[in-house]
């Protein structure tokens, strides 16, 4: 996600708890990287959240993403906020609350069902 936005010309800052994440960004990651937890507002502020045009919460914890997306939206008033929520039930509940909810599980269910149904029909 970070690499793709970067290649499209965005200035991208990545925050992650683990330095391995920096490794995954490739050897020549040209953007900023901040080591720390997304719940830690001092890290978010260092990363420049107050001036961000967009904020994406895509940690591997649904609840962390739910909380920091709301913090980004309400406290820092970031114009575009998105959160990854795997659990479809929580994804439903948090939809339409000022930030975009992306549920990979629901998307996968839809796509898998679609592919099975279209295969069955052919």
């Amino acid at each position, binding site marked *: 996600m970070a690499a793709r936005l970067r290649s499209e010309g965005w200035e991208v800052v990545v925050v992650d708890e683990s330095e391995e994440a920096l490794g995954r960004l490739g050897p020549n990651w040209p953007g900023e990287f901040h080591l720390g937890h997304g*719940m830690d507002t001092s890290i978010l502020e260092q990363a420049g959240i107050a001036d961000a045009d967009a904020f994406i919460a895509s940690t591997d*914890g*649904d*609840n962390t993403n739910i*909380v920091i997306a709301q913090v980004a939206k309400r406290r820092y008033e970031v114009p575009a906020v998105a959160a990854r929520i795997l*659990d479809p*039930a*929580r994804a439903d509940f948090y939809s339409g609350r000022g930030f975009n909810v992306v549920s990979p599980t629901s998307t996968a269910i839809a796509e898998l069902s679609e592919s099975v149904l279209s295969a069955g029909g052919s």
Partner: protein
Amino acid sequence: MFVVVIGGGKVGVSVTRTLLALGHELVLVEQERGRYERLEEEFQHRAIHGDGTEIFVLEQAGLGRPPDILVAVTGDDEDNIVICQLAQEKYGVPKVIARVNDPRNEPHFDLLGISPTVSATSMVLALVEHEVPQHELVHLLELRKENLEIVEVEIKKSSAAAGKRVEDLHLPQTARLISVVRDGRAEIAVGSTELHVGDQVLAILEPGSEDDLRSVLLSS
């Protein structure tokens, strides 16, 4: 009252025991299997196994009725926030109480309208206190806004307080005993309650009076 407690750690269990002893209806949700099994032995059907941030688990716990109070005391602040948001906004629970594990997260709770919160000292400190018996006073809760804290003390063989009634103790003005747990049963501490060796005593006090309380309950 009907109370749902999410998180079967020390705080969750103490709250559950104390409220059950007061005759309230309780459900306690714990995610970790081993801990749940121990809770089930003590609380039977009142203990539920599952992730309290999952909607079907909350419904199993009776959120749909809804409870009069929901207490979110897991070790994860993000989980406690989500549990309280679901309870308040999806189920209309009139009162939620949340535990804050990391005081730096307190503004997140405030921002998202979750109050009151109970700000525990860091989990590490609590764990250290459990591991180090000579520390004697275990901090359970800090009521930050109210400037109060709740601690647990075990009455020792050497304590002069053993065998005394609560009303005969010279407690500091800034401290009160809440309850006494003896043989797994909790009882509210009143003037006539007699302290025995091995009793787990819960006390509420103003920060700074720890030494006074310690000397009343523990010195020989």
